[in-house]
């Protein structure tokens, strides 16, 4: 698998991290990372996104030097650092557990990385002061970590890493241990920090919302391999595979059989719906899936007149009311359930759909996507 086939756009000039054919096999034959290659550009806010066990954390740890690849190379700022110990790399990490040293004050924690590398004490003091200022913790400098909240400890971890002025800041699931309210604050804070300090951020997360809202580019990983690298909107609107479509947001996948091929299009036979033509540039095998997001589906009582629309008669199986929207589960004639998000525009009973009703479901062909992988 090469970089070009996965990345929709070439990375911006000025590559800072280059992953080349990196594999990591653990004792016992588990392959955590399987021959991955891609580049990360300077000043990117890059997210490694995937379900647990997909190899994203292992990849991050290999960039930091806490693990080494079994094969392949990791270049940081043009230098091969695959086997360089972590203390000799221009990267710093914010750990998932924060790893704020419990026997040191906040100031000592932040100063640690400068002291061990022999930065002069007055410069250390100044930089620690600035770093604490940046994360708004100056008033807690003399506190011990056990007297602080999770959110505060995370800021200490951030300041401690940023004070080293790394070329790349690595963040391992930085929001996972915070409660919902703090998580939103921290998300904005991280975006703000990245813009102020102008350092490349690489974040590992299993939460698609986190990745979509913060990152400039996202690599979706599964089973040790990169499935797709793209900007958040590209990922959402143009997923490359069933996995990516399903992982990023909610999606309805309707499987069909390929019965005819044209230039840049195929004819698909879909049970319940019938034959339909779908534009595609990919090489298509025997089967393919149509992907439609729930919010792109329309429900009407009467059959829609527009001939361009794809339409099918469905039975409403369940309705969940959320105020502004309702989630509707509708069954196709062959029994497959589709998810539809309906905007509740009028106050009298919302969308007017109710359990058991037979209604028409339709969508515009341009809102659906053909997935072959």
């Amino acid at each position, binding site marked *: 698998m090469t970089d070009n086939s996965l990345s929709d756009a070439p990375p911006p000039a000025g590559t800072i991290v280059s992953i080349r054919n990196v594999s990591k096999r653990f004792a016992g034959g588990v392959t955590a990372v399987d021959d991955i290659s891609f580049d990360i550009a300077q000043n990117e806010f890059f997210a490694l996104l995937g379900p647990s066990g997909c190899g994203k954390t292992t990849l991050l740890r290999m960039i930091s030097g806490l693990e080494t690849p*079994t094969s392949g190379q990791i270049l940081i700022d043009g230098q091969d650092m695959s086997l360089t110990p972590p203390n000799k790399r221009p990267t710093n990490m914010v750990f998932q557990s924060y790893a704020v040293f419990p026997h040191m004050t906040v100031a000592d924690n932040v100063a640690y990385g400068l002291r061990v590398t022999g930065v002069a004490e007055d410069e250390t003091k100044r930089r620690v002061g600035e770093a604490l200022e940046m994360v708004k913790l100056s008033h807690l400098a003399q506190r011990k970590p056990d007297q602080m909240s999770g959110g505060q400890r995370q800021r200490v971890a951030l300041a401690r890493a940023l004070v080293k002025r790394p070329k790349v800041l690595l963040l391992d699931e930085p929001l996972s241990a915070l409660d919902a309210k703090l998580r939103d604050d921290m998300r904005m804070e991280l975006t703000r920090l990245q813009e102020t300090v102008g350092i490349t951020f690489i974040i590992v997360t299993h939460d698609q919302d986190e990745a979509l809202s913060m990152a400039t580019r996202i690599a979706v990983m599964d089973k040790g391999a990169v499935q797709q690298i793209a900007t958040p909107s590209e990922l959402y609107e143009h997923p490359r595979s069933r996995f990516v479509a399903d992982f990023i947001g909610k999606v309805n996948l309707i499987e069909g059989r390929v019965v005819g091929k044209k230039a840049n299009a195929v004819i698909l036979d879909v049970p319940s719906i019938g034959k339909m033509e779908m534009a595609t540039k990919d090489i298509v095998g025997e089967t393919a899936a149509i992907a439609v997001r729930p919010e792109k589906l329309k429900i009407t009582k009467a059959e829609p007149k527009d001939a361009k629309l794809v339409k099918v008669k469905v039975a409403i199986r369940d309705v969940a009311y959320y105020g502004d929207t309702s989630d509707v589960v509708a069954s196709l004639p062959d029994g497959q359930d589709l998810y539809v998000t309906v905007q509740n525009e009028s106050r009298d009973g919302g969308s007017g759909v109710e359990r058991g009703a037979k209604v028409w479901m339709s969508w515009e062909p341009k809102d659906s996507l053909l997935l072959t992988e």
Partner: protein
Amino acid sequence: MAELLKPGQGPLDYGKRRWLQAVFAVTLFVLYLPIFVLIAYSFNVQNRSGVWKGFTLENYAKAWNNSDLMSALLNSLTIAFISTIFATIIGAMIAVLLWRFRFPGKPAYEGAMALPIVIPEICMGVAMLLFYARTGMMTGMTHLSWPFNLGTIIIAHIAFCFPFVAVVVRSRLVGFNRQLEEASKDLGASEWQTFTRILIPYMMPGLIAGALLAFTLSLDDFVITFFTSGPETVTFPVKIYSMVKTGVKFEVNAASTILILITVVATVIAMKFQAPEQSGH
């Protein structure tokens, strides 16, 4: 340029560091060498100089026929067996007590319970000797018939074993969901029924581990046994002690090998019972 890591090896993979493996191997070698030499010599032909003269089972036969040695071994096993039963019951009760109740002076009580664990064995040994001598129990008990003549040793062994059992059982109880007890009482079970049907089954791994710990502690003990055995009672450690002081005899090796075997088996079983808790914390 700094020293590089090896491919696939992280900076914290100390388990793969050669020097650490070497320290471990050397330590194991030094720990086990004397024990294996002792076992090997139990199969050696008896000789004065102590060099290897050939394989024989004669030492085991000699040990078997040495009625003093055998009755000493039997005494030690009897002591361990009886002490274990008492220590386990008493220790488990203390564990439940400390786990279940709040009461005034509890820290001091817990401290007193830990005393037999922390004070030097020799202090406890001489204190027991003095106590038995002063109360006349030493003369009184050693004239009783077997196994009551072992009473002085058994009492002392129970005293230093049960606090250990209490510690082990209590650490098991920490994981107990108290609502199970409440649910049992809510369903109409009495205090006693709840205890025997809910709490005891839950404690069982802890009880077995505690009992085996008490058994090995009792068999392992030399110091307290040495001070609390009367002039006419001979226990295995005391018998070996007197034999060792008069020179190396290979039948001692044979008897020791048997005792080692018993201890090792008991310990391995005990650790098996404790293992699930260690992984589940």
